């Protein structure tokens, strides 16, 4: 693509690599960010197709468009794909491209580890989706409740693909988390104290801590299921003294922090876009930092609000009711701070800003249904119905997706050197927004009027055909909106107006680079004395950043990350052979990769 070729063209050596080799061996955070982003967007299309098929099936009661078994595979993979192959990677895409630039660094702390994370993510995701080719895609839900996932009740390969693939993806995420924590702590430009970092970098920092603490819990839970399925342990079998509730506690102990992993990066994006286009600094910077950290922390204390129907007893129910309501407070504070940022500003409604404002509104709508969920007695009516589906799509599509689209329109010029079309952008925005609300607003009613979730069909007795048809129509509209965004991305690569270094007049250091940035980002790393260096000390910062090149050493490309990633994913995939020593082949391959990597000159 144009950006990678532009990068390649800057390499002064006589021998230029092919594009494929360049991508396979790159350790450049910018290229890895683009790889993550493009891959995540491809999986967005896949997950979206899965959703459209489900919505077609549900558009009429007692429909037979797809079978029950295929539907169960679709809803499982839709959730798994959107959370693990879209939501998390797209955040990492932005972390990769933007964070080093924002803190005035030349790359992340561990460039080869960065590449390894990407390739494990890609190969692990391909492995999981390969299950569709043999008609045995995971079908236990994205939450995989025991004891349905036991060998007894799920005898096929479906759940095996699920536990093995997610274990690999988890490893990739944890490595990424470690990398960004090390980067942010160690590689900030001179003068950039923690409380001078851009909010997006702060949210990346908090998210990375949640990743390295929550993903290991999921890894443990997945290991328990793996042991049960492959080696006959009985962790979740009640007749042997086990308990399926154990899975739920472990899963949600991971799963609730997981949703904050999904949303905090988007909150970070909003905290960049809104001040930029309001031409005012972020209102309440310190509060925004502390509330983000607090959400990350309190997020550990609310997990069993996913389990109100399981019969934990009134004391536990009450505790989780209260803790869940408490976490709404720092979240609400953020909403008010964004509004206050815009208040008194001079607002430019670029497509990025439209997405950001819509994100604030839509997320708030999702947030209030979340408070309704927290009231545990009535939660017993809401849970496992479409009312919950409405809630989390409002917060995820409202908060995460609209926020990511805002980030896409905002940083596209920096990544590619060109502006996206504003007119197509506005069409894509309104179409997608209309589709989002048309799909998910009716679901609040569908749920409270009696339709449970995860059902491949529903009785005409429920009288919910009309509302379901409306939701399906909304799904189609949303798909068109996403298509328009993709067209904008593709067309603007060649036809977009040349952007220049700082087309939005933004404040933070990533805009003190070329568009796209040179491989080493800055000719000379500037010293900063403020939170908005390009608003308050622009001349000095830009003179340094574009001025005389200082001496530095960039990490060379390496093929060991991609090779090692093959070994890591193969280790898990080879479990499917049911031959005890096959995974050891993967372990050996991985070991060879790591040893060579360790001895590679850097």
């Amino acid at each position, binding site marked *: 693509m144009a950006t990678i070729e532009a990068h390649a063209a800057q390499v002064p050596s006589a021998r230029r690599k092919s594009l494929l080799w360049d991508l396979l061996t790159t350790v450049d955070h910018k290229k890895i960010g683009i790889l993550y982003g493009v891959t995540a967007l491809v999986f967005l299309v896949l997950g979206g197709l899965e959703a459209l098929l489900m919505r077609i099936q549900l558009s009429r009661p007692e429909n037979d468009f797809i079978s*029950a078994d295929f*539907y*169960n595979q679709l809803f499982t993979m839709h959730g798994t794909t959107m959370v693990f192959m879209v939501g998390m990677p797209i955040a990492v895409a932005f972390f990769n491209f933007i964070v080093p630039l924002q803190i005035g660094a030349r790359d992340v702390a561990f460039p080869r580890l960065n590449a390894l994370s990407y390739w494990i993510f890609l190969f692990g995701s391909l492995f999981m989706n390969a299950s569709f080719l043999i008609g045995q895609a995971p079908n236990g839900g994205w939450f995989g*409740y025991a004891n*349905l996932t036991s060998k007894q*009740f799920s005898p096929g390969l479906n759940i095996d693909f699920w536990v093995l693939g997610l274990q690999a993806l988890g490893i990739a995420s944890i490595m990424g988390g470690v990398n960004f924590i090390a980067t942010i702590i160690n590689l900030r430009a001179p003068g950039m104290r923690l409380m001078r970092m851009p909010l997006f970098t702060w949210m990346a920092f908090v998210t990375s801590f949640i990743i390295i603490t929550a993903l290991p819990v999921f890894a443990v839970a997945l290991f328990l299921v793996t042991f049960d399925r492959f080696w006959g342990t009985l962790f979740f079998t*009640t*007749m042997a*003294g086990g308990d*399926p*509730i154990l899975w739920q506690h472990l899963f949600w102990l991971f799963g609730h922090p997981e949703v904050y992993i999904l949303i905090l990066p988007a909150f970070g994006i909003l905290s960049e876009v809104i001040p930029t286009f*309001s031409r*005012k600094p972020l*209102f309440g*910077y310190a*509060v925004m930092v502390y509330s983000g950290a607090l959400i990350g922390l309190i997020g550990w204390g609310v997990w069993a609000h996913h389990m109100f*129907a399981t019969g934990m007893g*009134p004391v536990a129910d*009450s505790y989780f*009711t*209260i803790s869940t*309501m408490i976490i*709404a407070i720092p979240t*609400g*504070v953020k*909403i*008010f*701070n964004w*509004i*206050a940022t*815009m*208040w*008194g*500003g*001079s*607002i430019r*409604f670029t497509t990025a800003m439209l997405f950001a404002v819509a994100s604030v*509104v839509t997320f708030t*709508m999702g947030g209030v249904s979340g*408070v*309704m969920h927290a*009231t*545990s*007695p*009535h939660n*017993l*009516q809401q849970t*496992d*119905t479409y009312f919950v589906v409405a809630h989390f799509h409002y917060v995820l599509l409202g908060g995460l997706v609209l926020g990511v689209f805002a980030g896409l329109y905002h940083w596209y010029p920096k990544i590619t050197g060109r502006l996206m079309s504003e007119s197509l952008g506005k069409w894509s925005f309104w179409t997608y927004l209309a589709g989002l609300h048309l799909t998910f607003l009716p679901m609040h*009613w569908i749920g*409270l*009027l*009696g*339709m*449970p979730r*995860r059902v*491949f069909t*529903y009785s005409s007795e*429920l*009288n919910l055909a009309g509302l379901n048809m409306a939701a399906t129509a909304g799904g189609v509209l949303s798909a068109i909106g996403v298509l328009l965004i993709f067209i904008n991305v593709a067309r603007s690569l060649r036809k977009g107006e040349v952007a220049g270094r700082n087309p939005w007049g933004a404040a933070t250091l990533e805009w003190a680079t070329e568009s796209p940035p040179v491989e080493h980002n800055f000719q000379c790393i500037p010293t900063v004395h403020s939170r908005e260096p390009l608003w308050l000390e622009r001349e000095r910062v830009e003179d340094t950043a574009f001025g005389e090149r200082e001496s530095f050493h960039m990490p060379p490309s390496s093929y060991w990350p991609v090779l090692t990633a093959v070994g890591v994913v193969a280790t898990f995939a080879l479990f499917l052979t049911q031959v005890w020593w096959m995974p050891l082949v993967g372990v050996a391959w991985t070991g060879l990769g790591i040893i060579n990597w360790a001895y590679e000159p850097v």
Partner: protein
Amino acid sequence: MSPTTTSRGRAARAFALAAVLATATACVGGTEYTQTTFHPVSEYGSLLNRVFYNTFAWTMAILVVVLALVAVVVVRFRERPGRSHPRQIHGNTALEIAWTLIPAVIVTFIAVPTVQAVFSTQRTPVADALEIEVIGHQWWWEFRYPAQGVLTANQFHIPIGREIHLRLTSADVIHSFWLPRIGGKRDVMPQPRTAEGERPRANHLVFVVDSTGRFRGQCAEFCGEAHGIMALYAVAVQPAEFDAWVTSMLDAPAPGGAPPGAAAPAGSAAAAPAAPVQDTTVQPSSLEEQGRQLFLTSSCIACHTVANTTARGVLGPSLTRLASRPTVGAGAAPMTAENLERWIRDPQSLKAGTIMPGTTTGAGGVPPTGLTDEQIRAIAAWLYSLK
């Protein structure tokens, strides 16, 4: 006088209230939505809704404030030519405290009645509550009445005005018992191992139904292939009608023998009618009598129980008074003789994944029944006569 205390003001307030209520009612619809949560028939359900409406009111108020602020901002602070550079404000401590404390106070207004409801809905049932054991299966519901000795499936009767105590467990995976018109749902968990003589740990639902009617519910926890077809019906009736129903569900008493209530609970290994059984249903025609004979001599009895017969299988649902249920296969198709035939011939065609074997294909390790069409017609006719 203030505008709201004149007679015109009072009329205006009354009109506004009526308009809001009318809109709200239109918003939630009526009982044409058979599984609506908005028209509870028990105090349990009504209490849950009161908790909800309180939360709804406060959260909607907050949402309205946020929407209004955003609306003002996008209009008033648009960039305009000639507008000077905005004042670079960094924050305001008083505002931060205000919009932290006010939501915290609102959270208290929501949390206090909520926690009260948590405890009041999870109290122990009264001593004379009607206890019903509910056992979830893939993909049907079993109901046992320990005191009355009744065993049934997918539809169960309860008297109005009396406290009902449901003891909820599962025979296989986690399901969730949900009757929205009555109240909230509870998961049913597979039973843990217990000491000899100890009842397995269970979940509980306690409620009193105050209106008669048939209320539909369904499983609300993903439980495998046919999770979407696992409906259940509660039939709430006058107490006298309930007693008559109990009698109709039991084996007819042996001539000169024990009253129905003393019969061993249906389904226990030791239970067997003491005297030649009498089919107490509709006057048997020869087709139905053929069907009954076929049923009792086929593999059907390996899985099914039917009162007043020798069929005492417990792997599948009880078929006592089967035709009084609205559906075949826990919501797979409406209850008709033809659908019963379809079910017996090829249950997968009505409910993919079901463990009921068909005539040519087995299921779940059970071999096919090998019944002919003629035989199926007879059996279906007999089953359809069990009203």
